[in-house]
């Protein structure tokens, strides 16, 4: 048997399985988005682009997109800074490093939807731990689920708690494979630690940082579980992200056709945005003299 046979043997089973599972949903969504399938009438008629026109003027959908942009960028940035600090400490060696490393990885292993239940019990206004501690300190309590900013805050806290370990792990792996020579040379030249970090470590870490940031942007954009459990997009729609909006339209209200339109729009917007972000980050991190 020739090499071509083996070439195909390796790639095709995986690729074909993926295509088989993915292609139907995609084509189906495109077709459905041009129908009027909803709770009162099912089936594939053809109404052209009316769903698409509705989507463009759906202010709720676009404000959920803006909310997501804010959420994804902010939590990813905080996770990046915290994860980088934690990774640097372990990399430089810290007393009890093994213990810290083990403990910091634990949130990564927990289930987001289930942690959301725990966070919900912490941020319960009457009997939760957060207000309990505020009371003990003699401070006034906060309406975690009834006020807009605190509700957003709880989602951000849950997300940062859950995923900072991923950044930590990813950046630590990057630090461990850095070439040692430039760092040693700078140390011998007597450069200060902060100078070494900003002039050598940080630029060398740029490609890895971009990878980690992009992965987190992609993954955090899909956030659904914790919003579903923790705030149900409330108060009002203060914590409603596109995935929750999509879920509400298509699975709760059964507007199948319009849901498919929103889903495809989300996909297109995400692919365009991520490509732009990837290009910009790569441009900012391009090698420069110093």
């Amino acid at each position, binding site marked *: 048997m020739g090499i071509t046979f083996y070439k195909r043997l390796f790639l095709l089973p995986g690729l074909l*399985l993926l295509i088989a599972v993915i292609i139907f949903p995609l084509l189906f969504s495109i077709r459905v988005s041009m129908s009027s399938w909803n709770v009162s009438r099912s089936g594939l008629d053809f109404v052209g682009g009316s769903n698409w026109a509705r989507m463009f003027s759906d202010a709720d959908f676009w404000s959920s997109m803006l909310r997501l942009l804010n959420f994804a960028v902010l939590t990813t940035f905080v996770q990046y800074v*915290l994860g980088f600090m934690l990774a640097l400490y372990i990399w430089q060696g810290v007393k009890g490093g093994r213990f810290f490393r*083990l403990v910091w990885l*634990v949130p990564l292993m927990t289930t987001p939807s*289930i942690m959301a239940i725990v966070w919900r019990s912490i941020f319960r206004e009457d009997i939760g*731990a957060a207000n309990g501690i505020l009371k003990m300190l003699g401070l006034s309590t906060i309406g975690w689920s009834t006020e807009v900013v605190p509700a957003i805050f709880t989602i951000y806290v849950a997300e940062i708690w859950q995923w900072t370990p991923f950044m930590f792990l990813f950046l630590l792996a990057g630090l461990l494979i850095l070439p040692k020579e430039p760092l040693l040379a700078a140390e011998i030249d007597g450069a200060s630690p902060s100078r070494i970090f900003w002039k050598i470590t940080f630029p060398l870490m740029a490609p890895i940082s971009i990878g980690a940031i992009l992965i987190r942007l992609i993954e955090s954009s899909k956030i659904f579980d914790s919003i579903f459990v923790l705030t149900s997009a409330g108060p009002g729609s203060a914590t409603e992200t596109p995935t929750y909006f999509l*879920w509400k339209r298509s699975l709760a209200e059964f507007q199948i056709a319009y849901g498919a339109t929103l889903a495809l729009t989300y996909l297109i917007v995400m692919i365009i945005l991520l490509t732009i972000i990837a290009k910009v980050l790569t441009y900012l991190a391009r090698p420069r003299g110093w």
Partner: protein
Amino acid sequence: MSKTLKYVFLTFWTLFVFVPLSWALTTSFKTPDAVNQGATFIPWVQFEPTVAGWQDILGISGYANLIPNMVNSAIVTFFASLISVSLGGFAAYGLSRFRYGWKYYGNSDIIFFFIAQRILPPVVLAIPFFLLLKGLNLLDTHLGLILVLTSGLMPIVVWLMVDFFNQIPREIDEMAMLEGCNPFQAFRRTILPLSKPGIAISTIFCVIFGWNDLFFSLVLTFTNVKTLPAAVVALNGTVTPFWTLSASAIFSILPLIGFVFIVERYLAKGGFSGAVR
């Protein structure tokens, strides 16, 4: 940064990691009064621990039994990870060693196709998958959920493993083929043993993401194959009290927290480095 500041930060973060876990753990042993009369924190001082919450979820008190759900989660996670790691690993090896092409699309486009699947949120696929599985008679079956989860997990494996295989010198498999192995035997005898760390990392991420999936189980399974997250979230939607919910939360995350102790050394050593290169 000064040394003190550093340790203050480390301690603060470590405490922050412990906060929700210890709150859930103590709450799971609380009495109704200790929950409903305002926040309590210290067992034996502020309340007498009881195991009522745990009896509720283990089928002892007849309230709910999460053990079958844990078995479902284990079956689904195991097989979805197994399929993803083996098929994804093969595909990644192929993409690392051979040149594929169709018109002007090449290897990097195929890799992008795999990774692009991660952009798809489960909610986008929910209704088509529902209809697809309904047509195939696979709704509420292990196989159906495994297939669907595999489509989300395999991209992770391909993404992690292509770079990992790229780091293993080609000479190694070329040598094996010169000695009369076919490409498959060369892969099995020389590359597979060398890629254990990469396989370990891929498996860990498949297990984490497979175990933690809520959405597909929520939409595509009903009674027979409900996984743990879906079952616990369903409890959360009823009048289940917080001590029972906390017990179920600890019960569901315990297996993977045990898992971290086994796999931590793979995660922290260079095993992950293939992915970040």
